[in-house]
């Protein structure tokens, strides 16, 4: 692999909710009232090569959206560094993230919430590049028109407000807004999850065309395993804020190594193979406020042994291209 575009190095993200004054007073009387800490990301290390589409998969609450937000510069990591081309993406400014680059752009899940309802779509698309002087001022409206056409809309739509568009059209506008910044890396946070299945396919095809033609690198966050298989080169599986398995999409789908990955695949109902039953993973995802000791997956893992309760498995090379964090691949569970 050549020099990676995106380097995520031992990134952790904790959210602390400090109790208010009234709660602190009540806490002093009754006990409790300490700050609540949510461990959204723990020690995530990843590299994404230029031109690669990396899928990030996991159940809700596994930290995949937090990872996306850290990469997109909305949150600053609590520990570790996120670098784009060797330069940090954010700087911590008294608790809030200050984003230092325009090279990472994000596409949100819900296109009904991600466009300012009172701003014409042309202005929504043009605002960022105009402010950052990415496009010369006299070429802005022309560029907006060509971007709209590039995402399969018409240039004349620039004068309309978001509520005049359908969900799929809005998601195309959101893509145009991201592309207007001429980014190197796109973060797609469940970008098609809220669309109808038929529209999903259209938007996915649009994304794949653009990705190929513009040579974009992308972090594709999704819970939909079939979509990920279709779109991504490599896939990262996350569980409770940790990376558990990372492998090329093809290998991962053919032979999952981590028991959690196998369980995820087993839980997908399929059409065509005649499989009628699907196995839901046993139990609930544990709370990220109080993660279980050892391997976070051990309470639900069918193959867990005593070692899993004691020791956090480290991400280790399983073969040339894959890494996995499981004691089964690292000396056994006993």
């Amino acid at each position, binding site marked *: 692999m050549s020099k990676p575009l995106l380097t995520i190095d031992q990134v952790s993200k904790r959210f602390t909710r400090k109790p208010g004054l009234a709660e602190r007073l009540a806490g002093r009387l009754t006990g409790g009232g300490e700050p609540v800490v949510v461990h959204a990301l723990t020690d995530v290390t990843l590299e994404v090569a230029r031109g690669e589409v990396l899928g990030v998969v996991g159940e809700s609450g596994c930290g995949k959206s937090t990872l996306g*937000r850290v990469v997109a510069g909305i949150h600053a990591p609590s520990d570790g560094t996120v670098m784009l081309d060797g330069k940090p993406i954010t700087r911590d400014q008294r608790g809030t993230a200050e984003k230092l680059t325009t090279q990472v752009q994000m596409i949100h899940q819900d296109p009904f919430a991600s466009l300012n309802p*009172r701003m014409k779509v042309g202005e929504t698309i043009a605002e960022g590049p105009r402010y950052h002087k990415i496009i010369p001022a006299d070429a802005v409206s022309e560029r907006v028109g060509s971007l709209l056409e590039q995402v399969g809309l018409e240039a*004349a*739509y620039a004068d309309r407000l978001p509520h*005049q568009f359908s969900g799929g059209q809005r998601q195309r506008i959101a893509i145009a807004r991201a592309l207007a*910044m001429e980014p190197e890396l796109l973060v797609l946070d469940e970008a098609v999850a809220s669309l109808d299945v038929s529209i999903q396919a259209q938007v996915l095809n649009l994304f794949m065309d653009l990705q190929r033609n513009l040579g974009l690198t992308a972090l594709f966050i999704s819970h939909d395993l079939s979509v990920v298989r279709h779109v991504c080169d490599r896939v990262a599986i996350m569980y409770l804020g940790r990376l558990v398995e990372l492998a090329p999409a093809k290998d991962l789908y053919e032979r999952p190594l981590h028991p959690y990955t196998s369980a995820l695949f087993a839980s997908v109902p399929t059409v065509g193979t005649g499989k009628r039953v699907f196995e839901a993973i046993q139990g609930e995802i544990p709370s990220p406020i109080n993660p279980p000791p050892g391997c976070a997956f051990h309470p639900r893992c069918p193959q867990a042994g005593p070692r899993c309760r004691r020791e956090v498995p480290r991400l280790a090379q399983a073969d040339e291209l894959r890494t996995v964090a499981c004691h089964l691949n690292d000396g056994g569970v006993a």
Partner: protein
Amino acid sequence: MNNTSPDNSNVADSLPVIARETTATRLRNFWSDYCESRVALIALFIIVVLTIGAFGAPWLVPQDPYDLSLLEWSDAFLPPGEVGSGGYTLLLGTDNAGRDMLSAILYGLRTSFVIGLSAGVLALTVGIIVGLSAAYFGGRLEALLMRIVDLQLSMPAILLALVLVAMLGQGVPQIILALVVAQYAYFARTTHGAASVERRKDYIEAARSTPLPTRRIMFRHLLPNVLPPLIVVATVQVASAISLEATLSFLGVGLPLTEPSLGSLISNGFKYIHAGRYWLSIYPGIFLMITVVAINLVGDQVRTVLDPRNSR
């Protein structure tokens, strides 16, 4: 976007959503919705007439009540309909100094409008800045600002205004300042409520991840989306500023009688009401009441029209 395709008919066909909606048609829709209430339409008409009367007063009325040299003692306490030394019919009578009441009332109305509007606009501005910053930045700033606002809202505005005017002294700027301090809290609370909801929406996050500077996000993205409830509060608060000013003047801490406002006119005539000289107090009172009620009716209808639950 002037260089994009002008062929709108074609585009409209290919767009499978509601009809093209421009700012002009939205205004037209707003207007036709507004007109559905006859009462609100009349109220708006009254406000327009009163505004013209108040700001056109120097050209409309026979006497300049600011000019003390025009007053004649012999004209004092003339009842409505009499002809005074000026040679014109005194439609609403004269006061104890021989002032023509109609002239004084329209000039007073002008003072009231100026005070009400400028206090309203200033309080709106301050309230927006306080409420938006609290909602956008959150944390300690939010806690601090909103507790101050809560504290103020728990006290009657008149009390605060009274103390402030007593401290600052008489005069139009002082009254405006007192009203702004007493009233910004309503705007701050409304802005904060609406903005904390909008703040969590993805379009704000999208703007932050572009990235755009904070001030731009606050005023170009957040503010336009919290404006509708503020317009309603602003209308009501202008009415309340006018009556608050009248109350202060009535209590004798507002404007002096040489600078008549509706409140000081009522207060001045109040002494004579038992002497049968009702017109000194009643007419300014009626004008004040009509003004405040009309503004409130307009505000109510604006609220009804802007309420998304009412949209058809």
